[in-house]
């Protein structure tokens, strides 16, 4: 099990750096809920090591789009290609193994476990997950990986703290840590600064920048300062469709975007 996934993951990671073409590509992606079309015929491409923001008014389909990418929802029609491979309709665990990780809009951690355990269990999903007869603390490689991730998200001082006892901002960063521990190539962040103080928000922007090396990041965010400060390119969704796409400056000066945002 673990060797197989290691073989799957490794060539994708290495060959990917030299390979040209987008990391992620959707073709005519559509998701309907009854009569409502939440995501409507989205054609979308993200290049390697890009930080791409997805913005749009409430109900524009951002979360549904993320849910389709990460396998939580199966698209009604259309295709999702990751490194050129069709991953449409795969289950969340298979998609995670392909190298797409996500953090959640609503904090979604294991509250009764320690900070370290939250990240360790995520790291363990790549190796040794089926091992039954050795104590989990015997796998030092996993623990070292988890500690390294905690250092990178600034939570190393709180390894033994219960996740439930962390501050809101720390829990949000733990979310990112859990996602990073699965060694993704593409990281999807769903409103990483939601509910944060402005100081915490600044720290999280710093954090996202610092982890962005060798990583492609998709970020859904409402805070325009965060978006403009982080993104290389921005995609604007409205009523489930792509309204505009471009650099932060282009988007700021796009009359269609201004109209949508001023109306709401």
């Amino acid at each position, binding site marked *: 099990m673990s060797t197989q996934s290691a073989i799957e993951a490794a060539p994708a990671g290495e060959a990917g750096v030299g390979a040209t073409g987008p990391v992620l590509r959707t073709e005519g992606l559509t998701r309907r809920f009854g009569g409502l079309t939440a995501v409507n015929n989205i054609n979308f491409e993200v290049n390697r090591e890009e930080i791409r923001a997805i913005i749009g008014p409430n109900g524009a389909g951002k979360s549904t789009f993320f849910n389709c990418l*990460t396998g*939580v929802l199966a698209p009604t029609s259309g295709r999702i290609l990751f490194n050129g491979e069709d991953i449409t309709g795969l*289950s*969340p*665990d*298979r998609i*995670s*193994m392909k190298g797409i*990780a*996500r953090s959640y809009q609503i904090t*979604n*951690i*294991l*509250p*009764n*476990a320690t900070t370290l*355990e939250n990240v*360790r*269990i*995520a790291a*363990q*999903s*790549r190796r*040794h*997950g*089926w*091992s*039954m*007869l*050795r*104590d*989990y603390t015997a*796998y030092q490689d*996993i623990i070292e990986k988890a500690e390294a991730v905690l250092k990178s998200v600034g939570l190393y001082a709180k390894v033994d703290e219960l996740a439930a006892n962390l501050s809101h901002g720390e829990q949000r960063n733990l979310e990112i840590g*859990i*996602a990073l*521990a*699965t060694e993704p190539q593409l990281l999807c962040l769903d409103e990483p600064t939601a509910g944060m103080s402005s100081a915490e928000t600044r720290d999280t922007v710093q954090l996202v920048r610092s982890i962005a090396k060798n990583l492609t990041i998709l970020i859904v965010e409402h805070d325009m300062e965060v978006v403009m400060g982080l993104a290389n390119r921005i995609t604007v969704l409205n009523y489930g469709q792509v309204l505009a796409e471009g650099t932060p400056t282009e988007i700021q000066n796009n009359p269609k975007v201004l109209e949508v945002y001023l109306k709401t």
Partner: protein
Amino acid sequence: MTKRTNTSYWIAFSIVLALLIIAPLVLPEFWRRFLTEILIWGLLAMSSDILIGYTGMISFGHSAFFGLGMYGAAAALLMFSPPNLWLALAFGLVASALIALFVAYFSTRLRDIYFAITTLIFSQIFYVIVFTWTEVTGGENGLNFPRPRLAIPGLFSVPFTSETMHWFVLAVVTASYLILRRVTRSPFGMVLQSIRENEPRTRAIGYPVERYKIVAVMLSGLFAGLAGVLYAVQNRFAAPDFIFFLVSGETVIFNVMGGIGTLVGPIVGAGFFLLMREFLSRLFGDQFPYLIPLGVVFIVMIIFLPQGLLGFARRWLNR
């Protein structure tokens, strides 16, 4: 886990084990058998703790695994002459593991109450099959069979007495406990606990949750079947009553009374329940509806000791 709590754990473990080894030498015949039976029911309860306490799935189908372990042992003991203990174990374990795989395949896609109900229905199906298929299973009357000898080929062979029976059961239950304790602290065990805490999240970080659940149900069913084999060997009969869902219900009650997610707790719960029942029927006679006062005790315990007897004892010791 600090070094000191670890040392005191092993000291407590050794003391309890020593007491259980000495017990049959001091106890009269009735209580000797009674203690052995507590260990067997405790093993059944401990096996279901893997699901209830560690994976967060409440199984009402453990009577099926227990009962099929019994009938598997019965088949081996009736088919081979002289009856062989190890064949009984092998047959019982294979029977319960196969049944567990079958039940797991269909029930693990469902969650919470739907999982509980599905396992309950499966156990009732097996109950009806065993109850009605008289030519093979003996139907309502069950099966009687000789007790095998306690033997290791080429080394020794002695008939079971109530003492050796107790020690044999104690050895199996202790080994099972140590194995299950290991499993619950392994990477696999941590995944089960992650599923209990947050199933969608566990899936999102890359674990095929259904497969883990199927293996958890099989593991749990295997040890429930082992308890069934022990019960069959001790009592020399197998009966359809043991597949009936009331046995599963008692298993869940043992867990809640003793403390779920502790492995030892369910054994304590089984002992407490069976002792209470015995005392009540001794005090008030066989016809006494013992379930009424037991039910009251159970409700009081849920309100005041929600973590079970073991959870309460732990907190009290740590004070």
